[in-house]
């Protein structure tokens, strides 16, 4: 493999990785606070893409307004899901909440198939974003250059919120000890709703860029990215946003480069993430940046 081809694959890997990273942050934040795999997160990502599709094709919103509207609607969707499906089960066994999350995911997929039809749609074209920039022999789409920048910016803002604001302090408190945080007067429902809003908003940003880059939208498309991004969050150490972004990059690049180097493995591409997950769980269950927790009797 010559250098330009390698660089081409690398840039694909980085942009896919940064999309994974954006979604993985949502998983990691929800897991950090509720100890719940939000199975519906991938489907929230899928819904965001449909929101973007309709706001541009049906309501003819200019793209800068469409982006804001889509992020807002998706955040509201995330909060609604939390209020309807997770809040009533706050004191129920963990398995019930997990089943509820699976149920929400299933419901969103079926709703999307029902309302938007199962036929794939193509995302409105952004010629500026999909046009390429030449770096010597390597040509890179503008959107692929933009995604890592947006991801890192989003991470910076998120870290600011978590470490410097009152809301972030409350989030950290709730994730450390939920009961004590409640006793200390933190309105945990509000904190959890905010977490879902932020996570869903980030998924919406990812969804818009995903749509611009990969164009095809269909109701089941959130499933695989959703699972992979959860895996990314586990690789990075669940509960830690920096780890999630790191995990997203590792997974995205690993996936692209694996297929690039060993082309016989193309069909096995989706299996890569699961193999990575199992290896991480075996070798270092807490992930790269996770903290060790012990089971209390």
């Amino acid at each position, binding site marked *: 493999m010559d250098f330009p081809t390698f660089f081409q694959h690398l840039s694909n890997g980085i942009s896919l990785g940064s999309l994974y990273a954006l979604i993985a942050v949502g998983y990691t934040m929800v897991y950090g606070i509720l100890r719940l795999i939000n199975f519906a997160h991938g489907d929230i990502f899928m819904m965001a893409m449909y929101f973007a599709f309709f706001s541009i094709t049906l309501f003819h919103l200019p793209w800068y307004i469409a982006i804001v509207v889509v992020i807002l609607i998706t955040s509201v969707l995330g909060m609604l899901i939390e209020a309807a499906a997770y809040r009533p089960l706050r004191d*129920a066994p963990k398995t019930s909440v997990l089943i509820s999350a699976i149920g929400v995911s*299933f*419901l969103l997929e*079926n709703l999307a198939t029902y309302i938007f039809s199962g036929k794939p749609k193509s995302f409105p074209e952004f010629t500026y974003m999909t046009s390429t920039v030449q770096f010597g022999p390597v040509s890179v789409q503008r959107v692929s250059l933009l995604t890592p920048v947006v991801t890192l910016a989003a991470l910076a803002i998120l870290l600011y919120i978590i470490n410097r604001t009152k809301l972030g302090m409350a989030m950290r408190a709730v994730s450390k000890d939920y009961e004590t945080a409640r006793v200390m007067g933190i309105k945990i429902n509000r904190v959890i709703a905010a977490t879902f809003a932020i996570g869903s908003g980030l998924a919406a940003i990812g969804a818009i860029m995903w749509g611009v880059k990969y164009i095809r939208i269909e109701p089941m498309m959130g499933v695989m990215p959703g699972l992979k991004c959860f*895996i990314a969050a586990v690789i990075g150490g669940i509960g830690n946003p920096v780890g999630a972004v790191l995990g997203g990059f590792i997974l995205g690049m690993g996936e692209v480069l694996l297929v690039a180097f060993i082309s016989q493995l193309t069909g096995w591409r989706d299996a890569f993430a*699961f193999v990575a*997950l*199992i290896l991480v*769980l*075996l070798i270092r269950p807490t992930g790269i940046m996770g903290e060790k927790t012990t089971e209390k009797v």
Partner: protein
Amino acid sequence: MKKQYDKKRVVLNLILIAASVALLIYANENMSFYSKRIINLCAVYAIMGLSMNLINGFTGMFSLGSAGFMAIGAYAVAIFTVPVDVRAEVFYLQPMWPLIANIHIGFLPAMILGGFLSAIAAFLIGFPVLRLRGDYLAIATLGFSEIIRIAFTNLQTVTNGPLGIKYIPSFDEIWWPVGVAIVTTVFMFLLIKSTYGRAFKAIREDEIAAEAMGINLFKHKMLSFVISGFMAGMGGALMAGILGTIDPKQFLFTLTYNFLLIIVLGGMGSISGTIISSVIVTAGLEWLRIADEPMIMFGYHIPMFRPGFRMVVFSILLMAIVLFFSKGLMGTKELSWELLGNWYKRQRARFIKKDPSLKGGGSK
């Protein structure tokens, strides 16, 4: 006193068994192909529900790997029971791997082979996976289920890849699935009553306490996982025998959600609940097909009824059960004559309600 009660129970049991056998013979002789297929699917779903309930309901491990184990069983039947002379037609893109191309076995050995292969897979997967807990276990088993499916999609010369395998000799009577479902149910009752079953329940209630009581956690978890894998393999084998055509897409992990719905509805940790709910869910899903067809009521075309609505209703039902009836129909209880006697009126009302819906779903 107790003896008298036992005598009564034996009589009641015998009547129940005789009635069920008579009903099954009647169904097998007189029902349409479509109704028999629904009965067969009920039986397969019952087996799958029991398989999943053994891990999730009785041993308290949240596993989402059923679809993958099912795929192993289904492919064992598909690969080995397709007649040798039509194999070239099935594997038209790439010929079958010569080593297995001429091996042909009957349905029963293929089904048992499917069960064993699936159990072996469960055993191998169990080593890394069973050290995990809670949702990590869920996501890892789901991952393995997907890896199995992806492997089947890619092993072109063995599984015919994404094209799937057709011309599997299928049966049009109900004895195989119903028979296996009955054997599985009896086996489950015996297993749960045994010391192993008690150990499983102890692990479910509290792992650390169970370990302190001298229960070997890993051994029992593995046992439960392997038995469940075996059952799922048998279920998949029967599925292949019922449908006659299989392809990897059928075994997406969303298939596992159907079984999850069954055990949630029936009660996590109830054998009889699983059986009841598998009938309700399968017949209900068939009955819900009216939601996919256009409906005209009082001359007015109701716009909601169009393809896809069925699955929306199905998923809303799942959510409603999870949110409002988290114990399901039976909780961890079992249906017994005592229970029937205690809640005679309620049970009778339920049976009357259930019977017509059973028949109603069957005769359509």
